[in-house]
């Protein structure tokens, strides 16, 4: 029975995606109205709609900004959280205990709780309406440090020890031996952070008043508040925004699941 029921359940879950594709494929001037009714016009307009959207000036800017923010933050998180996670797991250094407490404490805190003071800090730094104002406060995640630390704890001690006996310095051991072994964890972190930032609305909305700096979530949400917006183009924009994370998820599904289940599944 489940051979029928499960595909059916999944199909029902995907119905809203179908609605999105249908509306995004409506031909121009097909009489889509503010009430969401579909009607008039005929033909398949998806590609024409996408072309129209990318020609509209604002959208390519939002798209580019989203790419800069998401990949920038994900790369920075991989570099810095990766380094700190490895150090916490494999090296004894002064302050390691304090850093660990700080990271675990941060995991328990919520961004909502510190949003006001972080905004005040960014404001006082003069970073309102700048890329660094959007990037720097998110450039490292406690989750990332924790994930890499957990993974690095499992690295085989013999490999690191052998390198030490060969006279390799600690930094060289990190760069040439540990980093390649940490790749699955770093890839997981990159993916999760990219997806999170691609969807980040709140912080850019606070920091960027200048539309030239808006990423996709801010641009689309601002369009949505305008009366009489074009549902057809708006939905096309939503569809195009949804494609990169979906493709990434399918390409890196294994890493994605590994990151999600960290701590949730007994190994």
């Amino acid at each position, binding site marked *: 029975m489940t051979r029928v029921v*499960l595909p059916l*359940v999944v199909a029902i879950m*995907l119905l*809203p*995606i179908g*609605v*999105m594709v249908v509306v995004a494929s409506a031909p121009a001037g097909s009489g889509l109205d*503010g*009430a*969401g*009714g579909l009607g008039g016009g005929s033909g398949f307009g998806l590609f024409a709609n996408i072309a129209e959207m990318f020609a509209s000036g604002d959208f390519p800017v939002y798209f580019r900004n989203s790419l800069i923010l998401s990949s920038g933050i994900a790369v920075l998180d991989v570099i*810095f959280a990766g*380094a*700190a996670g490895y*150090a916490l797991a494999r*090296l*004894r250094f*002064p*302050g390691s205990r304090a*850093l660990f407490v*700080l*990271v675990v404490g*941060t995991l328990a*805190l*919520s961004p*909502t*709780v*510190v949003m*006001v*003071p*972080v*905004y*005040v*800090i960014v404001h006082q730094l003069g970073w309102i309406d700048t890329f660094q104002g959007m990037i720097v406060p998110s450039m*490292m995640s*406690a989750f990332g440090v924790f994930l890499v630390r957990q993974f690095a704890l499992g690295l085989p001690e013999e490999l690191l020890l052998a390198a030490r006996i060969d*006279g390799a*310095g*600690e930094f060289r051991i*990190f760069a040439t031996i540990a980093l390649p072994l940490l790749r699955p964890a770093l890839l997981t972190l990159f993916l999760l952070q990219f997806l999170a930032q691609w*969807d980040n609305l709140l912080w850019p909305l606070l920091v960027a008043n200048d539309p030239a700096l808006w990423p*996709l*979530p801010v641009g*689309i*949400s601002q369009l*949505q508040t305008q009366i009489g917006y074009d549902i057809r183009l708006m*939905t096309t924009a*939503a569809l195009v*925004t949804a494609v990169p*994370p979906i493709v*990434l998820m399918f390409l890196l*599904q294994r890493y*994605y*699941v590994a990151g*999600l*289940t960290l*701590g*949730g*599944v*007994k190994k």
Partner: protein
Amino acid sequence: MRLARPAVMSGGGQRRAEERVGGMLALPAMLFFGVFWLLPFLSACYLSFTRYDLAGTPEWVGLENYRRMLEDPGFWNSAQVTALYTAASVLPAIVLALAIAVPLARPGRLNGVLRGLIMIPAVMPLVATSVVWRIIYADGGPANTVLGLAGLGPVSWLTDERVAMWALVVMVTWKHLGLFVIILTAGLQGLPRDVYEAASLDGAGPVRAFFSITLPLLRRTLLFVLVIAVVGSMQAFIPAFLLTGGGPAGATEVLPYYMWSTAFSFERMGYASAMAMVLLAGLIVLSLVQFRFLRGGADD
């Protein structure tokens, strides 16, 4: 500066090398978490006892903000809305996710494909999600079309006070279901197979096996899903922000949303910080559960 390095470093030399490199690798993280988490956390504690509007300097008012909260109907409304929203968007979703995960965890190519497809709503950005669900909930949209087929009248999903919260809950349940399913299937696939074989030899049916083997063994994973779901829902206000704007008449104004408006629409940073402290107190109780549970994982 070392002139010649011995083949194997002495204990002291090795320790110094670790301290130097470890400190170097960890320094950016120490600075970052200090400046963007510890300092803001301490400031939030301090600001919660002040009146502060960004333009001037914080003015100490003692417990005034907390006192005001007790008498503020907006705060009480948002606290209630948050509790309802959290309960309604977590519990049905987990039960549903479990019902889907148990058959979906079985091996097979079709199941593998379905596991990927079911994740699509979860990785879709919330803005895209809200664009779609605004269409679904529109006056002439698919939700009302389906109701019409059942002979029921159209509903103003997002503007009717009695319905808006439930419309929101349906959307976030749809969005999070795949995430919960995937975590649960991963947990289910890690369960020992021989227990089930022994149970079926003893004549236990699938229902019996579910309640007396699967549920107890899956407890940790279920608890994990429950905690991330609750903590996530308590802080989530973007769905309300995008779909209903907190309306109608505050019916979907969750606490973080009320806090956000207090801080950034009315520039009452002190009062907003006091609310953040109350929210944090709620979250800490749940986080303690989470950490006890995560630490348990390292032991067994």
